[in-house]
């Protein structure tokens, strides 16, 4: 069993959607990094991610890993947010046939998974069709 600190430290990203904007060149990183791969800068400002975007690619998982088997089939996609940042997350509250590359989605705060029957419950972002 992995300790709760591992998910606790990700809260700024999973709960508050905080990315890091490089003070030197403006590149935005989600999740934040220690060093910018574009200008080698190490100073960043916090920027909250845009709440909507479009599906760039997606899949529907039928054979799920441990922790997700009860949910299958479920959709996961790479979303290009309106601020240009790409993010990976589940796409829920829609049928698989309603999914399409280019479709607009918005972020919601949801339960993602849990560490077995007695472990930590992990919350975070998922995406739903924008209507």
């Amino acid at each position: 069993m992995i300790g709760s600190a591992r998910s606790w430290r990700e809260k700024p990203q999973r709960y508050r959607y905080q990315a890091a904007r490089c003070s030197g060149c403006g590149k935005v990183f989600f999740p934040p990094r220690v060093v910018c791969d574009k200008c080698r800068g190490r100073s960043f400002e916090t920027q909250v991610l845009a709440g909507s975007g479009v599906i760039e690619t997606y899949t529907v998982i039928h054979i799920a890993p441990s922790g997700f088997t009860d949910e299958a089939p479920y959709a996961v996609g790479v979303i290009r947010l309106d601020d240009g940042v790409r993010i990976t997350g589940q796409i829920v509250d829609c049928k698989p046939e309603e999914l399409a590359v280019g479709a607009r989605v918005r972020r919601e705060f949801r339960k993602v998974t849990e560490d077995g029957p007695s472990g930590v419950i992990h919350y975070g972002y998922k995406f739903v069709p924008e209507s």
Partner: protein
Amino acid sequence: MRDVAVIGVGMNKWGELWELSHRDIWTSAALDAIEDAGVDHVDAMYVGCMSGGLFVGQEHLGAMLADQLGMGPIPGTRVESACASGGLALRQAYLAVASGAHDIVLASGVEKMTDVDGAAATYALSTAADQEYECFHGLTFPGLYAMMARAHMERYGTTIEQLAHVASKNHANGAKNPNAQFPMKVTPEQVLASPMVADPLRLLDCSPITDGAAAVVLVPLEMARKLSDGPIVRIAASAHATDTMALADRAEISAIESTARAAEQAYKAAGIGPDDLSFCEVHDCFTIAEVMVIEALGLVEKGQGGQAAASGLTALDGKRPVNPSGGLKSKGHPVGATGIAQVCEVAEQFRGGAGERQLDDPHWALTQNMGGTGASSVIHIFERVGREAGR
């Protein structure tokens, strides 16, 4: 740097080897390679293994396997780069011989994947992706490659029927390989009717879970000329490149940039281009992977990879044969061993020992082994040379 050659190969039948342990599988392949090389010792050994820890609960493999080989106290090094662990072990062995640090070096790979159940194996493999920002959301490896496939289809018009032809072609080759895990022919229709794993990829688009090992012995080219009595497999180039770990951070989701970068270095070092290659062994962990890799290698133009198998271009008797061994798809994919098994196929083909799948007079070959969704790629180019110097 010295010229380096492969002089011995060892690989046994792959599959669900319940009666054999991780160490047994590896040691048999290693001993076969040493015997095939005609040497009585090795000076050092490298072993590629993705996850001894998660698959069999065993780490410290460099020491353990040197011990099992009965050749302690030689230096034993375990190399990990997810599914490219074997290719990277070969590269470390190559560098050790080329630099003059060692003369006779074993490069090997192993994975024992069936001691855990399917969900645990899926989890172990998923550790090659970003745990906190990909797998956290329920992504699996088929899921990641499915997203790459969807992006390729959207951008270039690639179809699921074209992907099915990749599986069919590789099974046709694997049917001629006695070491293959699934040496049966598969029709494109069977691929399209197999159960969905991660839309649009189906079960027969995916490489299997496999127990297996492979090993090769490397020596300086001059020593190979003294030891060998047949064609010699010279390593003409060794290249390695990385890319972002997470798919969402890639410049283009429908391309494998690390392979393109490593290929560029490898072609330059070998002094050849894709048109010179007699065949390639590539990392078809999923059908879409072969499509994207042959584009990155320059075997076809970007976006044209989808048609290659369906048109016969990459068939055994095509203009650009890809995966004569059957690839990961049919031969199996014990992840750490895959990059070494590719070299075993090169040696068999160069020596004329590939049986029913033997190609006509191959001279140059390329192996491409990658980790994760292409966050790492390792490429080697091989030249068949004669025993006499100057050829």
